[in-house]
């Protein structure tokens, strides 16, 4: 892993096309600004992990559960 030191408002350029700027630092939080072409997907690691975990659980859904599924959620009262 490449480790670099940056100050607020300093940036890193990746592959000549992705610019990551340190926008603000407060306590243990760092705000990053990312300029990237629209075709580059950007997702927080924990969100990807949450989706992967949800998929693992969902993949085990038993078939028998489906018999009771209603067509549509009950309307709000």
């Amino acid at each position, binding site marked *: 892993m490449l480790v670099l030191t940056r100050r607020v408002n300093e940036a890193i350029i990746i592959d000549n096309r992705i610019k990551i700027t340190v926008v603000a630092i407060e306590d243990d939080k760092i705000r990053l600004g990312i300029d990237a072409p*629209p*075709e*580059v*997907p*950007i*997702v*927080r690691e*924990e*969100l*990807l992990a*949450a*989706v*992967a*975990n*949800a*998929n*693992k*659980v*969902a*993949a*085990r*859904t*038993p*078939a*028998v*559960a*489906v018999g*009771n*599924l*209603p*067509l*549509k*959620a*009950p*309307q*709000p009262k």
Partner: protein
Amino acid sequence: MTSRFGTLEINPSDLLHFPQGIPAFEHLKEFFFYPIPENPAFTWLQAAADPEVAFLLVDPFLFFPGYAVDLPARLQEELAIKDPADALVYAVVTIPDGDIRRATANLVGPIIINPTVRLGMQLILEGTKYTTRHQLFKESFSDDESIPSSGGNEG
């Protein structure tokens, strides 16, 4: 062969190709629909190569009227989507302990399918208030604002 539906004959032209797989199942690239005839709101998405892996999908717009998905240009390109209205959008359902009353839908990771060219992928919506677990039955949503907010991830 499937673990839930017995042995099925699948026409190769019925297969849906997921070039990137889906998170946690990146090795599975081909799926097919196993519809639930009496309930068009739901369908199974069965992995062709793994009989154990099937996802129960739901039409999220029926259950969450305020739900909206922006299809990034990159995704439209990868799935050869010419008109976003032609894309199928599903949410993956999880049923904790098989208790249907506690079923949840993953609104932050919708499955997008272009039925015309039979390409699909799971989109992850960054920067929304959606989560992986929205109650299907205990709550009803009339608009965007009633969808529980937790910053797009789960605790």
